[in-house]
């Protein structure tokens, strides 16, 4: 069965080969990523949404004047007003405009997401590669430490790390980044273990490639897709973790606007002023969802077999 099925697609590739004009330009992996995002409606919309968030973050950072209200200015006479034409998302207990605060909040959210992933990605890939390629005792030591980290719920671990480091958004980033290292390490290690066994790695050894050449040319490029996909999904986890820390009051310090923190402060007024939670909550949900869908699109784009079909 599988044999015939494989066939159904295999000559298809052969014919595609005859039909396509000669392409001289080389495509990079990022072109594949882009193709994957565009190929799928959900991921395309997500991509546009995220691009919009990035623009909002940059604009609000460098041109704060575009905001309808100063997100930090208190105006107690307008405290806890519901959504209206003047205040689209309503106001909080100090009378600050929630719409402006949600927009400004993208700055922190995106920074936290990207920075935390950068930390866990770098350390995780390094540890995973060493463990996977070297094997033996190195592997055992690294992976047991990772297992120990995984045995503790990540948010607890993050709280513990923050307790040691003290409060503050930079520290939250470090805590979130450290907490998700094991996931990357495990993925990279298992992928490398599988890829190492492939004949093309053996072929590289036969022609005399060095270990470094084998890792960088044959092993890592084949791990890269799962790393990119995992990182995209990791951004959403990091955003959620940051929101959770913010909700618990461990993240940003007032009066900074951060979605999780806004959510946490809004819970006292949940029944009186539900918009305090609804809009930051929606912002978190949509952003996380967008990164997840984007991750799916990128995965499709990076699978050479899925792409050309």
């Amino acid at each position, binding site marked *: *069965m599988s*044999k015939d099925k*494989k*066939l*159904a697609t295999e*000559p*298809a590739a052969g*014919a595609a080969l005859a039909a396509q004009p000669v392409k001289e330009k080389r495509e990079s992996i990022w072109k594949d990523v882009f193709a994957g995002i565009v190929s799928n409606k959900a991921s395309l919309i997500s991509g546009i949404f995220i691009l919009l968030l990035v623009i909002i973050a940059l604009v609000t950072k460098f041109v704060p004047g575009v905001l309808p209200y100063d997100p930090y200015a208190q105006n107690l006479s307008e405290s806890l007003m519901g959504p209206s034409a003047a205040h689209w998302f309503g106001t909080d207990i100090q009378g600050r405009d929630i719409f402006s605060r949600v927009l400004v909040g993208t700055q922190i959210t995106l920074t936290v997401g990207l920075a935390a992933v950068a930390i866990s990605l770098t350390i995780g890939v390094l540890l995973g590669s060493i463990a996977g390629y070297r094997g033996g005792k190195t592997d055992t030591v690294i992976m047991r430490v990772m297992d120990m980290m995984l045995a503790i719920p990540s948010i607890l671990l993050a709280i513990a790390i923050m307790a040691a480091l003290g409060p503050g958004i930079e520290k939250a980033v470090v805590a979130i980044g450290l907490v998700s290292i094991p996931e990357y390490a495990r993925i990279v290690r298992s992928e490398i273990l599988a890829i190492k066994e492939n004949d093309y790695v053996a072929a590289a050894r036969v022609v005399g490639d060095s270990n470094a050449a084998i890792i960088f040319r044959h092993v890592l490029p084949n791990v890269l897709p799962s790393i990119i996909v995992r990182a995209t999904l990791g951004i959403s986890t990091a955003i959620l973790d940051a929101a959770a820390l913010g909700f618990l009051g461990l993240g940003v310090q007032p009066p900074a606007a951060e979605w999780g923190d806004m959510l946490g402060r809004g819970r006292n007024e949940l029944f009186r002023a539900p918009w305090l939670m609804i809009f930051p909550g929606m912002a978190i949900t949509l952003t996380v969802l967008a990164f997840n869908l984007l991750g799916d699109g990128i995965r499709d784009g990076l699978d050479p077999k899925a792409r050309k*079909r």
Partner: protein
Amino acid sequence: MLLSVKNLSTEFPVKKGIVKAVEDVSFDVDAGEILAIVGESGSGKSVTSLSVMGLLAEPGHVAGGSMEFEGKDLVHLSEREYRELRGNDMAMIFQEPMTSLNPVYRVGKQIVEAIRTHENVSKKEARERAIDMLRKVGIPSPEKRIDDYPHQMSGGMRQRVMIAMALSCNPKLLIADEPTTALDVTIQAQILDLLRRLRDDTGMAVLLITHDLGVVSETADRVVVMYCGQVVEEAEVRTLFDHPMHPYTLGLLKSIPRLEDDDSKRLYMIKGMVPNPLEMPPGCHFSDRCDSCMDICREKIPDLVDLNGHKVRCFLYENAEGEAKSVSAIAEAEAEAIADAEAARDVEASEALLAAEELREAEIEDIEEASR
């Protein structure tokens, strides 16, 4: 007539269109007969057998034609009725015996269960039957091996267990899909021998699906040759091997390295490769690779014509001297290839001579230098 397949078409809708895996295929299997369906990957031979077994994977489906087993219509059978039939009257063995056996159960338990789902017998009776079956398929000391796990057995042993399981309910038809492809030659010989023996003993019919013409020649009574979803030739086994008619069959037979060949010759090869199922050539599916392709071949698909029981799908046989034409076309192509090879060899030889001469000259120089 045990199994009768008429004008069967099976389709797989994919993103870019519909793959016609099986197109207008007809054949019959008589009781006690070994019919082989032979073809390369993509020929639709496996899909044909899965269609008969009602085991097509989604989104594949039978798009037309009829299949009758002992006069019973198979196409409109409900899933439950099919399950009933598959265990009792029809059985199937696959290429990879490791993946067809459940690794976490002892083989005995799996055979016993197969027996007990289809027949109302006690566990003890079923176990005795299982041991009997294992003995029948040539497993030494079956009383002990029945409690082995699949991974404790070799590939050949596992295939024997699969056969034992398939035969445990005395099927009238056994479908064997590449049963020996994953096995070593000496083990393959054992399994083929076993299949033939079991057929003689029990009188069951065997539908043998394979890509190996050698296996066909040694095992089957009748052969159906498939290419790109169509039957291109059908004949009694000796007729087919002695007088192959379709250029594809001829080419396949010629391209197999044989023990009795003269090795100095290049192997005959069928040029090109199997076409994309979504972009079949408009005429005969084989036209692009055929040495005796005519204009008409590129325009329409030939019919399967019956010449005294030897069926062939080729325009060469619309008139009498077709076979001669096809053979001569291949002979011509072959002669060309040989001429090319010989020309290449001549060049080689002269180069070698030159090289040898140069070496000798160099040597003489060396000696002269040394003597100085």
